[in-house]
């Protein structure tokens, strides 16, 4: 009995030093599964709740594409996700399928925008960091995504403050950065770092003619690596092409004419 207690204590100590590796059973609830096999069942075993995860890659690397799919999985399972878009770079049409108003059990996907195009001048980064802390403290959201673009200005003080807020909440914080993926160490205060970049092979979807130069969609492979506790694991995902309606995917055109009964 004494031996079992000692092992349990030792596991707790080790878990404190290397989070997410030593506890099992009921304590597995600390991790957040992503729905992507290579992240969930690799070394990382999902993302740790109440911790900061860095999500990095250069400005065109596929990191947001992977994150969107994961957000869709989270929303489908009832988790609430908020995305802080500091520089208003997201396009609403890319994300609207995450919010299904008809399904009450589905989690919400909200975006915090800076509304840069308005006349009011503000310190957008400062506001985003303030908003991030508020969103974590509110205990309303399960995942908070902070997209700072190329402004990598989170200091260790800010990380410490966000970490303190996280400890009192249930949320997971993902810091999205346009950063050089060649950097091999995670920032101070972060639990794990996932880096991504576009790579070959590049897949193509040909157009109606089938000619090799008539390309409808381009899909590069997304390669990445997961860095946790000094250990790295590679991952690779491919994205199915989304071909616009102009080519072979026309749905039946709905009848928009007003019915005679409505008059």
């Amino acid at each position: 009995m004494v031996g079992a207690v000692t092992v349990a204590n030792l596991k707790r100590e080790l878990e404190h030093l290397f989070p997410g590796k030593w506890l099992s059973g009921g304590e597995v609830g600390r991790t957040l599964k992503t729905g992507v096999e290579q992240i969930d069942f690799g070394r990382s075993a999902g993302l740790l709740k109440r911790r900061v995860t860095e999500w990095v890659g250069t400005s065109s690397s596929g990191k947001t594409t992977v994150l969107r799919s994961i957000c869709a999985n989270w929303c489908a399972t009832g988790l609430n996700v908020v995305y802080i878009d500091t520089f208003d770079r997201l396009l609403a049409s890319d994300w609207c399928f995450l919010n299904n108003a008809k399904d009450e059990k589905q989690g919400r996907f909200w975006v915090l925008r800076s509304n840069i195009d308005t006349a009011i001048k503000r310190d957008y980064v400062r506001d985003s960091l303030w908003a991030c802390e508020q969103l974590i403290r509110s205990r309303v959201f399960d995942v908070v995504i902070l997209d700072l673009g190329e402004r990598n200005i989170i200091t260790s003080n800010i990380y410490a403050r966000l970490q303190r807020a996280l400890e009192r909440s249930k949320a997971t914080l993902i810091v999205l950065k346009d950063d050089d993926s060649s950097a091999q160490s995670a920032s101070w205060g972060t639990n794990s770092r996932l880096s991504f970049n576009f790579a070959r092979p590049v897949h193509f979807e040909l157009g109606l003619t089938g000619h090799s130069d008539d390309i409808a969609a381009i899909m590069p492979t997304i390669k990445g690596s997961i860095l946790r506790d000094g250990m790295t694991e590679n991952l690779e995902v491919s994205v199915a092409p989304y071909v616009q309606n102009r080519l072979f995917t026309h749905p039946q055109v709905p009848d928009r004419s007003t019915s005679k009964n409505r008059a």
Partner: protein
Amino acid sequence: MQFSSSIGRAKVLVCSREAERANIYPGMTFTEARAICSHIVWREYDDKFYKSAQKKLARELISASPRVSTRESGLFYIDAEGFNRLGGENKLCRDVLKLASRYGFVDGRIGLADSAFAARVASRSKTKRWYIVTPDCDTVFLSPLSIDFLPVEEEAKGNLKELGIRTIGQFTEVPLSSYIGRFDSSVLNAYELACGRDNTQPALPVHEKQYNCTIDIGSATESLRDTLFIFKTMLERLTRDLQADGLCADELTVWFFNDNDRFDERTIKLIRSSSNSKFLLDVLRLSLESKQLIREFTAIYLSVSRFSKEYFEQTKATISQADNSGCSREELLLTGGDELDDSSEPVLLLLQRFITRLGEEALVKPVLNDQYLPELAGVWIPVVSQSNFTSSANSSTPVHEVFLAHSALKTTNPKSRKDCLMPGLVLKRHLPAMPVFVQFKETSASTEVDKYTPFRPAAITYRGHWYHVNQITTPEKISGMWWEKPVRKSYYVALIEKKPELAMLSNGAKSGLRSILPALMTVLLVYDHQERGWFVEGVFD
């Protein structure tokens, strides 16, 4: 205009004379009105705003006549009895019009008669600004007029016209008993009005209670702590008054004075009506933190500028899932989160914080929009329900269910290749679009491909570097928006790659610097036919 669920189905409630001239009438939907008049200017109907403006004007009209009542928007009943010794009825009309024009209502019209209905009809005279019906001649005045003036349904008017009744005179010639049983009560009421029997009388104005208070400190203060203490005292008094009258605040107005100089004025909208002083103090604190005072103040004026009746609702009972956090969650499908209830206390407080500091349109959710252009295919709608359609509404069109089902099918497509990712890449826009230099590939005009890509870019510049266009899609050519700002664009998705042989073309000063730009990028390259230029509108990330 009053919104139901979308801008397209919004109904016109009131419209100007100019709009009426363009054949726009109350009751039309926005889509119908816009089809008739493309340059229609619309405003959301704000009942409280119009009522407060009407009450304000009514208070001023008391100086012309002691009895003033307000009815529908823009309609006032004024007692015109006993003015023979005060300059006559003509002078009264002139005075009233002068008073109204002083407050910006320059197109006012007046009708003067024995009954309110006859006066109302007289005010619609197209030739005179005021029309005085001869005493005891209301029925004579009304009889030649069309039955369109009667306050009855269009259907009833049509039925009357089919019976050969076209004027009010013909309408009153038929005895009332003939209408009983054949028409509804509105026609019977209209009969009474047409006979000059209208009980509507202007009354003495009711004194409205105002909820405001002022504190003059006497010395200059700028400390947040002191300011909040003052607000706390003021709010406790105001909320006590509101609670005693069964009301709660919808909007607060705060003025800060430095001696006699009003240097700061702020109106704070509340997302939920409240008479809780703690909540209101929290809102004021957020406002002060987000927009700090530019100087010290000596006096504060706090007013509840909008209020409504308090109603009681049973709060939703929820079982927190926090206690279950220890249970095993092996699969993602089992890790469901707490339901996000928009009316719950934490959510409301959170929303109020964001509205106060960042504005109403900061926290949004994406919604599909029935438009061709990629940037308009979705819109951001504020999550706060009361402002669902504020500014972004003018371009929001609901997507037909057929298309919605089709799109949902595509996005939930099962396993693609290696992992279950949503199809398509995510675009991150450049604001504004980034103009680029383009080098073209020489292609022979005879090949079949040229039909699709007559201008095939071979290399582009991106942030000071030349990139070789490795692959490029057939352009998606979209044009439209001719009714607002014409758009004609060709959208290409290009896979671009840094090439060593193009490095010499790069900017020499920058080429030696370490760049965070990747070797392989996917960008949205756009040729704007209107601007005649190439732009990178965003990168796929």
